[in-house]
């Protein structure tokens, strides 16, 4: 190492030192101790006692944990693709040089500014079975069908029925996709015009252009939004927590991994068990991200590579 290199290393490390401290104290240490506590019986006010893999064995046999795991996957499996679909569609619509694009972009973006707690309170009211706006909109439409077809369809009481509760949460988070819309729109605007122009000369249709030009070019943006959605969806907490008043919804339909973790840590005095859930949650996100990255290497197109 030359003197200059050593100097640069010193200065560089000095500049990133706030991050290094933060990383060690607020990231590495908690992560390591989370793993350690997950091997302990720990109830905060008494010292942690090492019990080996007992917490993990208990988790494997705990059907409520499996319910939480199932709910989390169910939610993520719907919320991530639906979120991508909705935000991408809106961005594509905006990308047509329509008048009032700025206005529409603002409209789509605004809900993503709403704090989670407000979002939950507001949608709890929107989804109210009797008085909510959602059902007052759906029911007249269903009545028309019922009248015509002699059926007895009725809008569900979203948050009170185990079958529909997760859909209620999905609607709620879909309302906040504005962030992704803006990111997608920026991505779409970066697609080189000449690609479309030459496709136009070949007489390509809108769908052909979308499939062969737009999607491949913006695939890094899709990848980014997908990873963000993944990390966000697997730790969903505030919205179901507020909507259920800190509980887990009808028939545990709104019990997610983060909720169960919180309950074990702060309701049931099982911090060790909570840490074991946390370690599993982290492992899931890590594996899925790695998987998505592997997938992206094959399907994501990077300009200039």
């Amino acid at each position: 190492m030359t003197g200059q290199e050593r100097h640069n290393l010193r200065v560089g490390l000095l500049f990133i030192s706030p991050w290094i401290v933060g990383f060690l104290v607020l990231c590495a240490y908690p992560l390591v101790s989370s793993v350690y506590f997950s091997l302990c019986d720990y109830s905060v006010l008494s010292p942690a006692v090492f019990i080996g893999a007992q917490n993990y064995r208990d988790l494997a046999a705990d059907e409520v944990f499996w319910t939480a795991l199932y709910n989390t996957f169910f939610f993520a499996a719907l919320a991530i693709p639906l979120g991508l679909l909705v935000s991408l569609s809106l961005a594509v619509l905006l990308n047509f040089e329509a008048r009032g694009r700025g206005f529409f972009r603002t409209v789509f973006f605004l809900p993503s500014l709403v704090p989670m707690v407000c979002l939950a309170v507001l949608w709890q009211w929107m989804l109210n079975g009797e008085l909510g706006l959602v059902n007052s909109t759906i029911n007249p439409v269903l009545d028309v069908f019922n009248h015509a077809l002699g059926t007895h369809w009725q809008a569900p009481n979203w948050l009170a029925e185990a079958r529909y509760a997760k859909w209620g949460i999905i609607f709620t988070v879909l309302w906040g996709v504005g962030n992704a819309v803006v990111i997608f729109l920026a991505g779409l605007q970066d697609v080189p015009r000449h690609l479309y122009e030459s496709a136009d000369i070949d007489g390509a249709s809108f769908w052909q252009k979308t499939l062969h030009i737009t999607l491949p070019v913006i695939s890094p943006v899709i990848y980014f939004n997908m990873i963000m959605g993944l990390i966000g969806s697997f730790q969903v907490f505030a919205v179901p927590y507020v909507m259920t008043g800190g509980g887990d919804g009808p028939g545990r339909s709104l019990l997610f991994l983060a909720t169960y973790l919180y309950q074990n840590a702060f309701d049931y005095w099982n911090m060790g068990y909570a840490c074991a859930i946390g370690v599993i949650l982290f492992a899931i996100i890590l594996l899925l991200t790695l998987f998505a990255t592997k997938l992206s290497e094959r399907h994501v197109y990077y300009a200039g590579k």
Partner: protein
Amino acid sequence: MARTNLFARILIYSALILAAIAFLAPFAWMVSTSLKPLNETMSLPPRWIPNEIHWENYPDAIREMRYFWRYAGNSLLLCLLSVVGTVASSALAAYGFSRIEWKGRDTVFVILLATMMIPFPVVMVPIYGLFKSLGWIGTFKPLWVPTFFAGAFNVFLLRQFFLGLPKDISEAARIDGCSEIGIFFRVILPLCKPALLVVALFQFLHTWNDFLGPLIYLTEQKDFTLALGLQSFQSQQGGTAWHHLMAASTLVVLPVIALFFFTQKSFIEGIATSGGKN
């Protein structure tokens, strides 16, 4: 896609307008409910325009939340501290990750990116224990001190901006005998005001909206933030006084929306940058 025919145009506009209605309706519904008397929130079919406008729902909701102004003050104080902390620390770290060449920099940066994957619930218990042993539970410290240690996302964002600046400007300053810290303060930072603004805005929003942190660290009701205060108000109401809940929600959302309208351009650009050019 310059030329689209009339039919397509109508289709696109109607889709956009429909979507816009769907996105705006909840806001309108929130405000509409917040101005109704209680019995009218229960009437069927629901009406968009209340028979009488009940402005007093707002002062009533504020009174029922008891510490509303305290909550607002707490939220603002925390936002301020964490914005200062984030901007200061992230700018330093981002500079170290972009404007100085040092061995192993890119490897360390990959570690930084990887930390974005760690959800807060996973490290919640040990961090809670850490703050407990510091005697910080029940104070604001757990909520703002960590922001002085550069969060990964903000470092990432600022680094993108810093990389975009030409190398020559630093070189020129170096030749003039400027130290690295001098270059940082006198050359780079003034050029990056828009980027710093974006980071400040994001942090403001993050702190304003945060729920889980205040939920576990704040113990006294009067130390709550607005988001936590709203949740506590909601759980006390047991989901009955919708007009007051909606009035309170409107009051919590309003500052964020106002801030957005003042800073719209930077905001949108910042978000676009966060996702795109990496």
